[in-house]
C-alpha cells in the first residue's frame, strides 16, 4: 500500500509531523500484529460480556477476576488429572482438539458457573453487598488456586496440551485491505475464533430478544418489571450464571488455549480491565469488544515499542515514555470516561441494587 508513503511525506512538519509519524507507525505495526492483539483482547472481551450480562440485569460483578482465575486453574488441573487416562494424545486436525481438552474446557466453564451461582445467591437471595461478594470471590480464588497450585506444582505435572490455531488460507490473508482483519479473526484457536460470534450473538440477544428486553427491564427498573409479571429474581440468577459461562471461557482460554500452563495469579488484573472495557463499551457487547481491542492494542504497543521502536524523532520520544504508561492507559481512559470528560457512560439504573419483592405476605 502506498498509504504509508503518503504519510511519510508529511513527517517533517513540526508537531503535526509527529502525529503523522505515529499514524504511519500504527498503520505499519497493527496489521502485522493483529492476531496477537486479538489474543490479548479475547479474555478481555469474554470477561466484559460476563460483566454486561450481569450488570444489565442489575447485578454488579467485580468477582470476574476471581472467577476467571478459578476457571483457568480448573481447566488446567482437570487436564492434568485426566490426561493419563486417555493415553497418548491424538489431536484432531481441527483446532488440535482432544477429548481431555474438551473435558478440561467444560470443567473450567462449570466451575465459573458454580462461582457465579454463589455470587448470585449472596447478592440476589441474601441481598448482600455485591461489592463484598465480588471481593470474597477474588480473595478466595486467588487463595485457593495459589494454595493448590503450590501443592500440585511440587510434582511439576504436564497439562493436557492446548488448543491449536486455525490457519486460514494464504489467499484470504493476502487480500488487500481486509486480509489482515481476516488473519486477526481467523488465525486463532477455537475460543478466540468464537469471540466475534459470541459478541454479535449476545448483542442481538440483549437488544432483539424477549429475554434481552426482560434483562434490561430488570436492570433499569425492577419494580416496574415485576409489575408486568417478570420474575426479577429468576432473570437475575439466569443472567449471572450465564455470565459465568463467559468468564469461564475467558479463564480457560488463558490456561488451555493461550498457554499450556497455570501460573499463580495468571489473570493479572484482566477481570478488572474487562470491567473497564464494559464501561467504555457502554454496557453493550459490541462496544465492550471494541474497547477490549483498543486496550489490547495499548498492551501490545507497550511491548512493541521495546522490540521494534519507530525510527526518527517519534522513536526518541516513544523511547522516553515509560512502557508502564501503555499498561496504565486502559485504566486512565476509563477514569476519564467516568469523569464525563469525553463520552459519558451511564450504567443501568438499578445496577448494584438488591431487589426485594413487594411484601407478599
Amino acid at each position: 500500500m502506498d498509504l504509508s508513503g503518503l504519510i511519510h511525506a508529511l513527517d517533517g512538519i513540526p508537531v503535526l509531523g509527529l502525529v503523522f509519524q505515529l499514524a504511519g507507525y500504527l498503520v505499519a505495526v497493527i496489521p502485522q500484529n493483529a492476531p496477537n492483539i486479538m489474543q490479548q483482547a479475547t479474555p478481555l472481551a469474554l470477561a466484559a460480556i460476563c460483566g454486561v450480562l450481569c450488570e444489565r440485569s442489575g447485578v454488579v460483578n467485580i468477582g470476574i477476576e476471581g472467577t476467571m482465575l478459578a476457571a483457568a486453574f480448573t481447566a488446567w488441573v482437570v487436564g492434568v488429572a485426566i490426561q493419563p487416562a486417555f493415553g497418548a494424545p491424538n489431536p484432531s486436525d481441527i483446532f488440535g482438539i482432544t477429548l481431555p481438552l474438551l473435558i478440561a474446557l467444560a470443567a473450567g466453564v462449570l466451575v465459573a458457573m458454580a462461582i457465579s451461582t454463589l455470587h448470585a445467591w449472596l447478592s440476589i437471595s441474601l441481598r448482600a453487598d455485591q461489592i463484598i461478594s465480588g471481593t470474597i470471590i477474588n480473595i478466595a480464588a486467588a487463595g485457593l488456586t495459589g494454595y493448590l497450585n503450590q501443592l500440585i506444582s511440587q510434582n511439576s505435572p504436564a497439562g493436557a496440551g492446548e488448543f491449536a490455531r486455525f490457519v486460514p488460507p494464504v489467499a484470504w490473508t493476502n487480500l488487500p485491505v481486509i486480509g489482515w482483519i481476516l488473519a486477526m479473526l481467523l488465525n486463532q484457536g477455537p475460543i478466540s475464533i468464537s469471540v466475534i460470534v459470541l459478541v454479535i450473538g449476545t448483542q442481538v440477544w440483549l437488544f432483539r430478544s424477549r429475554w434481552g428486553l426482560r434483562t434490561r427491564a430488570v436492570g433499569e427498573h425492577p419494580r416496574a418489571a415485576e409489575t408486568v409479571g417478570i420474575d426479577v429474581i429468576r432473570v437475575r440468577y439466569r443472567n449471572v450464571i450465564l455470565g459465568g459461562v463467559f468468564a469461564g471461557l475467558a479463564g480457560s482460554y488463558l490456561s488451555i488455549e493461550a498457554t499450556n500452563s497455570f501460573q499463580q495469579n495468571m489473570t493479572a488484573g484482566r477481570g478488572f480491565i474487562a470491567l473497564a472495557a464494559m464501561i467504555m463499551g457502554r454496557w453493550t457487547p459490541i462496544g465492550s469488544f471494541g474497547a477490549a481491542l483498543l486496550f489490547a492494542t495499548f498492551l501490545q504497543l507497550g511491548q512493541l515499542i521495546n522490540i521494534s521502536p519507530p525510527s526518527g524523532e517519534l522513536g526518541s520520544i516513544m523511547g522516553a515514555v515509560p512502557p508502564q504508561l501503555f499498561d496504565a492507559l486502559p485504566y486512565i481512559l476509563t477514569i476519564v470516561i467516568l469523569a464525563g470528560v469525553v463520552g459519558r457512560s451511564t450504567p443501568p439504573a438499578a445496577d448494584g441494587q438488591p431487589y426485594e419483592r413487594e411484601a407478599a405476605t
Partner: protein
Amino acid sequence: MSAPVPVAGARPRRSFAARTWSVLAVPLLVVILSLLLGAIVILASELLVARPACSTVTAGTPCGFDWMLWFTAYAALVQGAFGGSDAIIQTLVYTTPLVLGGLAVAFGFKAGLFNIGAQGQFLVGALGAVIVGVALAGAPAPVAIVAATIAGIVAGGLWGFIPGFLKAVSGAHEVVSTIMLNYVAVQLLAALVSGPLKVPKSPSPVTYDVGNAAFPIFLGDTGHIGIILAILAAGLVWWLLFRTTWGFEIRSVGASPDAARYAGMRPKLLTVATMTFSGALAGLAGTSVLLGVSHSMTSSFGTTVGFDSIAVALLARSNPLAVLPAALLFGSMRAGAGLMQINAGIPVELVDVLQATILLFLVASPVLRRLLRLRNVQAGIATAAPGQSLGAGTAP
C-alpha cells in the same frame, strides 16, 4: 418499610454479658467456622500430594495420610505468630498496616463509601514516603521522618481525593474509579522505581535507602514506631467519628444522604473529605511499611494489605476500635504463615482462603443466625449504605 420504630427505652435492658455476646457472637462463630473449614481444606489437599506409604520410607520423612496435619499446621501458625517475644513483635509489625488500612476502609464505610482503593492509596503513600525519604536521607532524623511521613499521608490522601472528587462532581462511582486507580498506582510505581527513582547502576529496579527517614525501632529488633502511630490513629478516628461534628455529619450522610441534605449538610463536600481522609490513612499504612520495614522500594513493592484491609474493616463492623483486634487476627495469620509452611508444608495461601471464608460466613451470617437459632445477636456485616446503586450516576 413499615417496621415499627423502636422507641428509646422500650427495649428491655440487657446485662453487660448479654450485650457483649450480642456483639461478639457472630464474629467469633465465623472465625471458628472458618478455621474448621480450613482444617477440612488442609486434610482434603493431602489427597493431592501423593506421599509414599509409611512402610516404605525411613522414619521421619512425611508419609501416608496424616490425620493431624491440620493441628500441626495451626500449631505452627500460632507458634509463628505468638511463640516468643520476637514473633509477637513481628506480628505487631504485620498488624500495623492492617490497622491503618482497616481504619481507612472503615472510615469510608461510615460515610457510605466503599473505598476498595486502599491498595492503590497504600502504594502511592509509600511512593510519597520513599521520594521524600530518599531526598532527606541525610537530614536530621526528626526532620526526615516527619517530612517523609507527611509526604506519604499527603500522597495517599491525593489518591483518595481523586475518586472522591469524581464522585462529587460527575457521580462516578467510587468502587469503579478506585479499582482503576489501584492499577494506575501499580504502573506508576513500576515506572518510577525502574525510571527516575532507580539506583543508577543497580541491576534490578530498586530505590536508594531512606536512611535517616527510617522509623526508629523501640521494641526488639523490628518493632518500629509505626505500631504506636497505628494505635493512635485508631483512637483519632474513633474520636473524629463519634465526638466531632464532622464525624456526626459523616455518619449521617452514610446512614441517609437525603436526610443529611435536608438537615443542611453537604454530602458532596463530605464525600470528597471522607475519601481524602480515608486515602490519607491508607497512605500512612504504606508509609509505615516503607519507613518501618522495607526502607527502600523495589518494583514489586506491594502486598495484599489493601484487600486485607477490606476484610479487617468488615470483620470490625467498621468500628474504629474493633479494627485493632480484627487487624491483629489477620496480622497474626500473615506473620505465622511462614512457619506453617516450613513446619507443616502448608502453603501460606491458606491464610487467603481463611480470610475469604471468614468474609463469606460474615456475609452469610443471616443464614447462620437462622440455622443456629441465635437471637439477640448483631448481624455480621454493617456497611453504612446497603444497596447503594451504582446507577446513581447523577447524584442530585
